[in-house]
């Protein structure tokens, strides 16, 4: 009898444990389901979006871009810019600390800029690889305990937005660490600290100071989209990213969660490869003609693609700049195949006896962007319908598509999404900063654009550059190297337990998230 009671007790204990494992997160804990793990927490090495989304809760920055796309001070208290725009004198707030208790002073801020810039350390993160070249960063120097001077090589209206991407960390802690230690033991300046990191499973952060409403944030790594959806519906996670359009209905019908849709800042396009590398490929000569490029804009039903393949409505883009920073006079090109055919006739490419005007190849990645393979095939069909016989080729991203793209050896048409921002149109336009810029995958060389780019960049403010910007965007609209598509919609699954709104720029900001 005693043995039987023992067995029953053990069974009950096990079942209780099991029940606890299946329970919803406690009220002071927010659980987020991500598709990819962090790879490092060394502030100088972080490069991926998922990694940065976690890191921004551990490390504070001098400035921050808010929900509305405005740049606001975070650790910075006061900013003075020199007359030539080459020097930023920044005073930080007093009594700041890192999460190990160390006082955070101007010396630490300068160190946070100078460490990633140290070429001997061979950092390949976002700071060294992207922010500093864009910023024209030269050096950071300490003026006094609370004041730091950031020196740039050229004036830029992008400065504060770029500085908002530099993670501030304490010098003494990082000087004492090896690079390997720095990647796993972050000593942050933000409102949360890293408690545990079970690689491939979960990352747990604990609140140390404001801002932030939850005591703990748990980032669970769930690579498979349908598993993330199941965890959300079961109530085990509060927020999930990258919801697949085919799962929106299931989440909305679950009663426990709903899908939040947001028009993202990633600019989806079909790029026209105007580079000599494409010469000889079918369709390469034809797209050199701006009239053909503009005619093809009418051939593709972008709202139809959004509603049928992306599960949402979206507005067609008019340029490479994210709303509301675009040229307000430009109207999205409507879907009008008759107009496309008329313009192609006028451009000198009538249908032949077989109904084909010319052949062209369209390449696209598989699994890189939202429903990309289907979108690419739909575009191929739309173009074929107006007599541009399109051969669609879908390629694996990492080992095939990306290297071809970087080498500018894509087919004459290629599907691509490029990240953008809401805080400055010049950031979005900087893809075409020079004819040979690495991001100018289309090898667009129109001198009118690049002459105006210099004028826009030299302007002291965006407002003063606005007439030039609008002129550039009109040129891009009429003769540009993109077939304009849409700003990629992002879908997040959100539990009815929490109040949280997604941002447009793919950043996950949990500071204001709260229980309902």
């Amino acid at each position, binding site marked *: 009898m005693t043995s039987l009671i023992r067995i029953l007790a053990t069974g009950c204990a*096990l079942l209780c444990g099991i029940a606890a494992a299946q329970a919803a997160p406690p009220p002071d804990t927010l659980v987020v389901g991500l598709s990819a793990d962090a790879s490092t927490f060394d502030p100088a090495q972080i490069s991926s979006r998922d990694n940065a989304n976690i890191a921004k809760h551990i490390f504070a920055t001098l400035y921050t871009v808010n929900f509305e796309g405005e740049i606001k001070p975070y650790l910075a208290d006061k900013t003075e810019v020199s007359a030539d725009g080459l020097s930023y004198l920044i005073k930080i707030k007093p009594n700041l600390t890192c999460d190990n208790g160390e006082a955070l002073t101007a010396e630490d801020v300068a160190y946070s800029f100078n460490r990633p810039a140290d070429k001997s350390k061979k950092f390949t993160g976002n700071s060294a*690889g992207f922010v500093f070249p864009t910023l024209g960063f030269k050096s950071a120097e300490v003026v006094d305990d609370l004041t730091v001077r950031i020196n740039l090589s050229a004036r830029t209206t992008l400065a504060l937005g770029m500085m908002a991407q530099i993670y501030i960390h304490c010098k003494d802690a990082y000087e004492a660490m090896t690079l390997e230690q720095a990647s*796993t033991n972050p000593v942050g300046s933000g409102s949360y600290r890293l408690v545990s990191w079970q690689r491939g499973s979960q990352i747990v952060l604990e609140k140390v100071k404001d801002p932030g409403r939850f005591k703990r944030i748990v980032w669970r790594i769930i690579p498979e989209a349908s598993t993330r959806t199941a965890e959300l*519906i079961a109530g085990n996670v509060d927020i999930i990213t990258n919801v697949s359009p085919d799962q929106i209905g299931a989440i909305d019908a679950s009663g426990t969660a709903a899908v939040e849709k947001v028009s993202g800042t990633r600019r989806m396009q079909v790029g026209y490869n105007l580079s000599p590398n494409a010469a000889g490929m079918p369709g390469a000569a034809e797209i050199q003609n701006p009239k053909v490029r503009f005619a093809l804009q009418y051939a593709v039903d972008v709202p139809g693609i959004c509603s049928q393949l992306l599960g949402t409505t979206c507005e067609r883009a008019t340029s490479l700049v994210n709303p509301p920073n675009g040229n307000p006079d430009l109207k999205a090109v409507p879907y009008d195949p008759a107009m496309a055919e008329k313009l192609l006739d006028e451009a000198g490419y009538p249908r032949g006896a077989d109904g084909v005007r010319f052949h062209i190849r369209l390449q696209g990645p598989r699994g890189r962007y939202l429903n990309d393979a289907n979108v690419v095939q739909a575009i191929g069909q739309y173009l074929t319908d107006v007599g541009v016989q399109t051969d669609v080729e879908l390629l694996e991203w990492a080992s095939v598509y990306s*290297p*071809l793209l970087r080498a500018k050896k894509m087919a004459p048409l290629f599907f691509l999404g490029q990240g953008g921002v809401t805080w400055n149109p010049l950031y979005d336009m900087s893809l075409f900063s020079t004819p040979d810029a*690495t991001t100018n995958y289309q090898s667009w060389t129109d001198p009118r654009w690049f002459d105006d780019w210099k004028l826009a960049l030299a302007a002291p403010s965006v407002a003063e550059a606005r007439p030039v910007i609008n002129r550039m965007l009109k040129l891009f609209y009429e003769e540009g190297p993109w077939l304009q598509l849409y700003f990629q919609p992002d879908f997040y699954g959100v539990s009815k337990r929490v109040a949280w709104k997604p941002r447009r720029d793919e950043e996950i900001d949990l500071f204001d998230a709260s229980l309902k």
Partner: protein
Amino acid sequence: MWTFIIRRLLQSIIVIFGVTAISFVALQIGGDPTYLYVSERATAEEIQQTRVALGFDRPLYEQYFTFIGNLLHGDFGTSLSYKRPALEAVLEALPATIELTLFAMIFAIVLAIPLGVFAALYRGSALDGSIMTMGMLGQSIPSFWLGIMMIMFFGLYLRWLPISGHVPFLVPLLQGHVVEAFSQLPMALYYLVMPGVAVGFYSLSRNARLVRSSMLEVLGQDFVRTARSKGIPEAAVIIHHALRNAWLPVVTMVGLEFGFLLGGVVVVEMIFSWPGIGRLVFNAINQRDIPVVQACVIMLSVIFISLNLLVDLIYVRIDPRVKL
């Protein structure tokens, strides 16, 4: 026997070098991996600096021989994504995969033997038909589909089992935290059920069919008839005489399958968010993290080769007719 072992070990070294060479070349075919480690906006100069820093500027054969040279000193290189020793990343992920594979194997063997035996004993009956139908289904259903269906039914609808996640058992055990490891064992098993079944169902089906056909063959042999004629109870005839002979082909299959499962759990690990070597190598291939891919490949090759050797040695032990 020692000559055999030494000969097999020497052969294994050649196999491992062959595997590293093939995987090294395969990863390079896709083009220059440097682009994955620089920003989209990096200048040509920055790209070249990174290329030099990562060693991709050197000829392929030089990169390979440098890698092999380091390997002989026990250095598998530093992960390009994680910025830490590649071997460390692999060894960290390996216990989770071993837990999953072991569970799947045990599940497959423990169920396959009785199912196969009963199917053979009741050949042609409804029971035999049911078991064989299950066997056919198990070999036809892809593990990812089975996994998703189990998530939907047992995880979401019935809420009996966790949808995803992992509770470690081997890691605390290997670190010497025996009490902690065994206190976590029930939860570890609880989290193992669905992924383990998804991985092991194919093996269960195949092994059940194998045991059945092997048993049918053995049950018709003279020694079984002799045993029965001597009045030995039927259960003893089945267990001590028939099954002992019937499971020789199963041992061979099980040994090979363990290695096969170790390398083949990628999809199931992705579906169940299982932090094992399958997911690690999948991500590493996507990011062209060559040191991690190589460390995974070598580790899996060593395990596979060791298991083959072990199976050969066990075979000698259980079948006296086999000589090395």
